[in-house]
């Protein structure tokens, strides 16, 4: 202890750490403020300009959901293969019974991989597009143009994206989970696992609880909300020059992944408590 008092950390390092800490705190403050503003706008302007905002929201739901179905079908099949393939291989090696395949699928796919992988894939597809579109619009002065026309940029640009991504992650998560569960049985069948479909789906039903449905619904919606808020914040909330858009995109992706992981951790703790 005395050593540390006599030889404090180099000043440059303290500066560096302090700057990082303050930047982190400012970023968190920015996200919270932006999220609260967005929620406020959703509530207070729910009915205003519906004929403009509703079509934009439906378009965002299509962009962050419907149009991605083929890609997510592929992912769900791959997810079923990965989990069942590894589970069957491991159970064969340790001499385990295949009666827990359904339980493994619920633990791995329904509770964790389904929502998390869906959120990350949607971040790479639609989240990055958010930052680039909004960052470019900001840099080209389109946001000023909206303000000059008396149009609230958060209402026009952010609200449809937030609702679209929250709905999109929720629907795609359900789709991915269903696809992975069904494809999981097919992969088990192809690996000659002696199990009838009815046995497999009974295992699934017994392993699922009502809490799983609630948690998956809330978690996937929150993933979508957080990704939309973080990506829109980086695209819109800071004055950007065109050359800064790529850096903002990288920052937004990294921070979205961290936010989703932290959110997931909270839900894991919830399972441990309940």
């Amino acid at each position, binding site marked *: 202890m005395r050593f540390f008092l006599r030889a404090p950390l180099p000043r440059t390092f303290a500066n560096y750490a302090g700057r990082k800490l303050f930047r982190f705190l400012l970023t968190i403050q920015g996200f919270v403020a932006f999220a609260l503003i967005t929620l406020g706008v959703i509530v207070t302007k729910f009915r205003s300009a519906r004929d403009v905002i509703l079509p934009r929201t439906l378009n965002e739901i299509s962009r962050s959901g419907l149009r991605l179905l083929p890609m997510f079908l592929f992912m769900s099949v791959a997810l079923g293969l990965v989990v069942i393939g590894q589970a069957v291989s491991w159970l064969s090696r340790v001499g385990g019974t295949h009666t827990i395949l359904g339980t493994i699928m619920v633990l791995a796919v329904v509770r964790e991989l389904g929502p998390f992988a869906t959120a990350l894939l949607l971040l790479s597809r639609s989240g990055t597009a958010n930052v680039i579109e909004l960052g470019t619009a900001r840099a080209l002065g389109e946001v000023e143009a909206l303000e*000059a026309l008396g149009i609230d940029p958060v209402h026009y640009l952010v609200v449809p994206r937030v609702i679209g991504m929250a709905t999109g992650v929720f629907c795609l998560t359900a789709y991915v989970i269903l696809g992975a569960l069904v494809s999981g049985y097919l992969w088990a069948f192809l690996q000659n696992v002696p199990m009838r479909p009815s046995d497999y789906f009974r295992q699934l039903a017994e392993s699922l609880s009502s809490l799983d449905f609630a948690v998956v619904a809330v978690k996937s919606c929150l993933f979508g909300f957080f990704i939309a808020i973080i990506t829109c914040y980086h695209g819109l909330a800071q004055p950007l020059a065109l050359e800064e858009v790529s850096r903002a995109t990288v920052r937004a992706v990294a921070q979205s992944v961290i936010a989703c992981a932290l959110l997931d951790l909270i839900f894991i703790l919830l399972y441990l408590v309940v």
Partner: protein
Amino acid sequence: MDAPVSPPRKELAMEMAGVTVSTLNDPTMVMVEDVHWSVSVGDYWVVGGLQGSGKTDLMELAAGLIPPQQGVYRLFGHEMPIYGEHLLPERLRVGLVFDDGKLLNQLTVWENVSLPLRYHKNLTREQAEQQTDAMLQAMELMPWRNATPGALGLNRRKRVGLARALMLRPEVLLLDNPIAGLDVRHRNWWLNFLDQLSAGHALMENRPVTLVATSGDLRPWTDRARQFAILKDKRFIVIGGRAELPGHSEPMLRELMAAAA
């Protein structure tokens, strides 16, 4: 004995007292200081200045996008900036045409022009069709109705910006460098159209629109606008009417009115 009858005082559209203008991206940077300026309803002002003199920032402040760093700015008697939703109708009495149009690149020309109308009046595309098409026709933009801004040249982009600003029928129209970079035909079209707006155009229900334009070249405006001012060394200098232009001693004014070398 009867008191002398003074002419009726015109209503003030804009009034600035000791206003310091900063920029949108850097509120600490001072572009123009101590602006004292009154614009009455029906006026037609042109503010001259070189590039970087703060013309755009002055227009953005006048439109309510930037708060004054110091001083008081009143728009139709309301102290700006007015961000409250209940004061939005007051803000919409002013329209701003940006230098390069600043159109929304994801939308078509028709969608850009109809957006303010649809947003503020909550109209479907079908409901906004008639008014938007009438505006596009007046601006001679119908052939580019479904084009995106990226496919348009500067001449047309500026007209789309004008059409969009006029959709809500503002009483004051602020124009940032409206004829800069245009070819002769389009420049004449703009100057004639602004004359019509100032006198009362059918699109605006024949009501005269108060005009404030900025320009880096005062020559095209000398027989069009009625009041002139210039920006020089962070100062806003009111020149006065057309009659004051030829004999004014301000060197910058002579520079802005000089023929190209």
